[in-house]
């Protein structure tokens, strides 16, 4: 199997699906000739031409609105928003229109498209280039939200997303775009949406993470092991619909759980996960569920390593939970 980083794996998935399905078109700022600011779409313009890899003006509302129209007419657009933080000029189109087609057509019709966008901190981008807006979109019924942590999952989940009958927001953890490397299956390869992955088995504490923070959770798990605490690490992969069954199964085993995410704490996805654990596994809990997250502040330029829920912040939470 070829070794790839996440950028290459996403590129591979897009290329595969574009060769197979002529309805798939890419669009976004500098995705064509330049190959995207993170080079995710590199080479696709040359292979598929400017009517399938479309450079757009700086116009997020226009990009997403147009993509919705294209989807209504049977194309499968995969627009790129250059940074997740720039998705908000298109928020209205996504929330008011995209999310609602299946509902307003009585379940018969959907605007099926995948919005790809890099999210998260780790590049010292400050408050306009670092956010993780998953909760804002999950709260809108009608959207699916995906965030891979490994190159193989990035490919498999992206192909699943493009083939999914509903709109998907595909969040790419830019911090590990190139740092995450691994074997990626060639050709057709699908990782089904809605299935979490138990990356590491363990009996003492469940750690739930996704995207770039998976690696921090794994690092904390390793350090916890040195202290005799055996963590189970769950990579969520699809953030919505949530694979609560896998989480609950793990929590029933360990009785202790720490949820990790970059986004601010209040009303983050961690809040929902903890609420569901309380509903479904309350009597199995040995300690209050914990969240290690970004703070309820804008994402800072400096202090990035304080803000992010890195291993050095996860480990004490694991220890505290284990000793409760």
């Amino acid at each position: 199997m070829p070794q790839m980083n996440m950028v290459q794996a996403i590129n591979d998935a897009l290329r595969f699906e574009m060769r197979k399905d002529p309805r798939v078109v890419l669009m976004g700022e500098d995705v064509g000739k330049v190959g995207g600011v993170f080079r995710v779409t590199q080479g696709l313009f040359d292979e598929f031409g400017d009517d399938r890899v479309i450079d757009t003006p700086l116009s997020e509302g226009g990009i997403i609105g147009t993509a919705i129209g294209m989807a209504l007419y049977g194309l499968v657009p995969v627009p790129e928003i250059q940074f997740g933080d720039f998705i908000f000029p298109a928020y209205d189109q996504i929330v008011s229109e995209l999310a609602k087609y299946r509902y307003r057509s009585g379940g018969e019709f959907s605007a099926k498209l995948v919005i790809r966008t890099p999210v998260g901190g780790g590049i010292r981008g400050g408050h306009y280039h670092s956010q993780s807006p998953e909760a804002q979109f999950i709260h809108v019924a009608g959207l699916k939200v995906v965030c891979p942590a490994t190159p193989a999952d990035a490919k498999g989940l992206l192909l699943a997303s493009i083939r999914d009958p509903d709109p998907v927001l595909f969040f790419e953890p830019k911090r590990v775009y190139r740092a995450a490397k691994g074997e990626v299956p060639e050709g057709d390869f699908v990782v089904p949406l809605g299935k979490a992955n138990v990356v590491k088995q363990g009996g003492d504490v469940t750690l739930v993470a996704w995207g770039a923070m998976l690696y921090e959770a794994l690092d904390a798990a390793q350090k916890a092991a040195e202290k005799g605490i055996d963590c189970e690490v769950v990579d969520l992969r699809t953030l919505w619909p949530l694979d609560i069954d896998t989480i609950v199964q793990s929590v029933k085993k360990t009785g202790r759980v720490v949820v990790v995410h970059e986004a601010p704490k209040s009303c983050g996805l961690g809040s929902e996960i903890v609420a569901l654990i309380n509903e479904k596994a309350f009597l199995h809990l040995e300690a209050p569920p914990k969240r290690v997250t970004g703070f309820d502040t804008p994402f800072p330029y400096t202090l990035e390593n304080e803000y992010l829920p890195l291993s050095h912040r996860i480990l004490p939470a694991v220890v505290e939970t284990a000793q409760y």
Partner: protein
Amino acid sequence: MTDHERHLGLYRQMQLIRRFEEEAARAYAQGKIGGFLHLYIGQEAIAVGAVAALSASDYVLTTYRDHGLALARGMSPRTAMSELFGKATGCSQGLGGSMHFFDVEHNMLGGYGIVGGHLPIAAGTAFASKYRGDGRVSVVFFGEGAASIGDCHEAMALSALWKLPVIFVCENNQYAMGTPLTRTLANDDVTARAAGYGMASDRFVCENVHQVMEHFDLAIKRARELSEPTLMEIRTYRHRGHSMSDPGKYRTAEEVEEHKRRDPLVVSRTALEKAGLGDKLTELDASVETEVQDAIKFADDSPEPGPELLAATTYKGAFAR
């Protein structure tokens, strides 16, 4: 002040911005500055000319390419460099960094990273000035890339309708990141829209700082005396990539060289030399050098902010968790 004295002052400001940014680029390469760094090199005459025509109480807002305007407005190089370095002595105590300068004292209401998002905000400050009758003008700078986003249209439509004392300044450097003008605008005359909104317009190629001042004089007069907006488009060129991470391969070396030959900073320097002010220039350059080196040293020596700063900068009072 004689014309020469005034010109020397403008030259010094442009040279300060140029040298400040060249040193910032070096510090970036050394890893002292992280994230993004968008250089204004090549466009300095616009901020300097505009600020020279404005009064200190007028409001200015710009994009993430904001160091030039901040320095022209009077932010000290120490404060600016410290912000780039993420230090507690920066204009936002290191929390914002390069793209997000803010300077209440000098009425610089921010560098903005969401393209186009600041245009309606400038309409709002102009509205407030009109409401208060305080005669202040708001000036908002943006790139031609921003001309395609909805906020741009909405800001201009409202400003014309409400006759707001605002100047929309499109610094058309002909590229939005890697995308040339020809592939983002069907009509490359951004000011053609002004007629549609019902506002005055002005379009010119930036050749030198005096010319910029003169054009601003007219637009400022229109805003201050008639409370009417202006859409201005100034053709210019950025010598560097979009930001430090952009090698700028979408432009030919010849094209860049061609524009460097017409660099308004060099135009000023040549004119001043011709006027026999060579010694004075050498003196000014030396003082700029001292100021920039001092800024680097100051930023280097300054402390980083502590995490306790986050809570206090999110809401007034302790709130954040």
